[in-house]
């Protein structure tokens, strides 16, 4: 499989001490729809921005289809359809104006394609951006990115603050469009059900590092959940502990003992593992 996006020892530091990304080695395969999950401040946005040249690495390298965005930003951008974190549209301009803008600045932009997506959703092309709902604005951002016909789509929290129906509609357009042309997509999200719906791969970031980077199928197959306070079965490697949805404390483990983990639990377990040291909580809770 071709690697379309990669980072090699990527690091990004803000100021003197804050490393948003640290020693990151990642690959994203062609044709995949990959989710990027992690706490705010874990570098998700920074990572996505780095590929379009909005952030320069402090250390390491990154490539998009072999192109280095630091050396050749224009070429990197030309390979990308980027959906920035909302809000990013021009309030006073109409939807069609945005399309005209893209067509005027992006060689090869496909107006008909972009318009088509929006017509399918009955989003009026002559509405001003600030007259649209949040879900509609997100769709406009997506249509613009899809209109570039770029092989790689990078989406920075496109679903944040959207209601469940708007998210569902967005993902439906995204998945269909990406699969239709064999493009690759990387999107950051906080909502695991959305990720389950749309993505086939997963990257969990924490503290600027990669905590997990696997296909979703592997993630689910390779993890299980056991009660946190019981002795651990032999061969089970504990990843992290967290409260289950039903309240008791559980541990995510690799191994064959315990019950199957949901994708949400896989992610939560790794996020718990990736957190900076915290004082012991389990014993206090047991006492409480």
């Amino acid at each position, binding site marked *: 499989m071709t690697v379309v996006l990669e980072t090699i020892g990527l690091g990004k530091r803000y100021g003197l001490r804050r490393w948003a990304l640290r020693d990151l080695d990642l690959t994203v395969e062609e044709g995949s729809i990959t989710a990027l999950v992690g706490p705010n401040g874990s570098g998700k946005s920074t990572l996505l921005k780095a590929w379009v040249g909005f952030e320069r690495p402090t250390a390491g390298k990154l490539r998009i289809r072999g192109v280095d965005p630091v050396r050749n930003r224009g070429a990197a951008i030309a390979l990308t359809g980027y959906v920035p974190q909302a809000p990013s549209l*021009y309030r006073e301009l109409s939807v069609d104006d945005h399309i005209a803008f893209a067509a005027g600045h992006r060689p090869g932009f496909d107006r008909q394609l972009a318009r088509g997506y929006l017509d399918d959703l009955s989003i009026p092309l002559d509405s001003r951006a600030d007259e649209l709902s949040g879900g509609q604005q997100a769709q406009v951002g997506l249509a613009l990115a899809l209109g570039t016909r770029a092989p790689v789509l990078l989406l920075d929290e496109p679903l944040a603050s959207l209601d469940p129906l708007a998210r569902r509609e967005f993902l439906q357009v995204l998945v269909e469009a990406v699969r239709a042309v064999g493009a690759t997509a990387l999107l950051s999200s906080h909502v695991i059900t959305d990720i389950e719906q749309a993505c086939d791969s997963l990257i969990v970031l924490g503290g600027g590092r990669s905590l997990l980077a696997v296909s979703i199928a592997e993630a689910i197959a390779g993890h299980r959940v056991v009660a946190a306070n019981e002795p651990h079965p032999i061969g089970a490697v504990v990843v992290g502990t967290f409260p289950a949805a039903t309240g008791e404390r559980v541990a995510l483990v690799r191994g064959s003992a315990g019950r199957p983990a949901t994708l949400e639990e896989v992610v939560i377990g790794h996020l718990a593992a990736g957190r900076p040291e915290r004082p012991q909580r389990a014993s206090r809770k047991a006492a409480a």
Partner: protein
Amino acid sequence: MVESIRLTFRLHRFELLILAGFTALVVVAALVVAGRLDGLGYGPCAQVMETYTRSCEVLAQRFYAMDSREATPVLTLAAMLPYAFGLFLGAPIVAREIERGTTRLAWSIAPSRLRWYILRTAPIVVVVVLLAFVAGMAADRLFAARSPGVDISNAFDGYGYRGGLLAVQALVITAGALGLGTVVGRLLPTIIIALVLGILGIDLVGKLHEQYTRREAIIVADDGEIRGARYIDQFFELPDGRLVGWNELAEIDPAAMESEMGPQYPMVALVVPGERYREVEAREAIVLTGIAAVMLIGAGVIVRRRRPG
């Protein structure tokens, strides 16, 4: 490309309409007041002293009253136009986009930020210069009307408040506000800082230029009839040919200061003759344009390098 220019104008539609309207108002007002001043018929009186009659005095009163009541406000407004253009059209070009986050869209759609920058900036700069130039011409007309007997194309009257210089001032303030905006990335602070720096900057350039121009000044007899010249200083001519100022004279000949009629020595002035007006104006225009060009280029460099915010 036409489409991109149209979109740039749409993004600044509100400010463009208001400022174009304001300019039109100032231009019309200037022409109207100029007409009214001319209509008073004070011209002949002002030009030839011999024919100064009693009716001239009456006319003079009316003329100067109308001048201060009508011409001065209009000219003040005209002088403010370059600042208005710069702050309200120049500052937002990049700063507002950074503040609102639209640069994240624009700079990820457009592989070339430089092209984006040029398409965003050039149309606005052209419009600003054109509007300010028209205002400058109208101010010229009004100055001509309020300075009867003076050929204002060869006079320093109202220097810096009229003519082509208005367009150049607008250009440099726009370029400066734009450049500042690319660094600050927020509109309101940019406007405030640009206003202060703009006033100080133009003042500074003016003062520096004046110092420079001093070197080209000449001595002429000061019979109160020097018109249109840029007046630098005034001296008394001593019998031995020395030129002294008031303070020096007080030391040399205290009695002269106290006599009823004042010092009786002939006076001379250090002036730049009005005929040099065009040349001096052109020189200042070139310097300011050069500064504007540097700032526009600098802003472009910053746009290429900075984060979208």
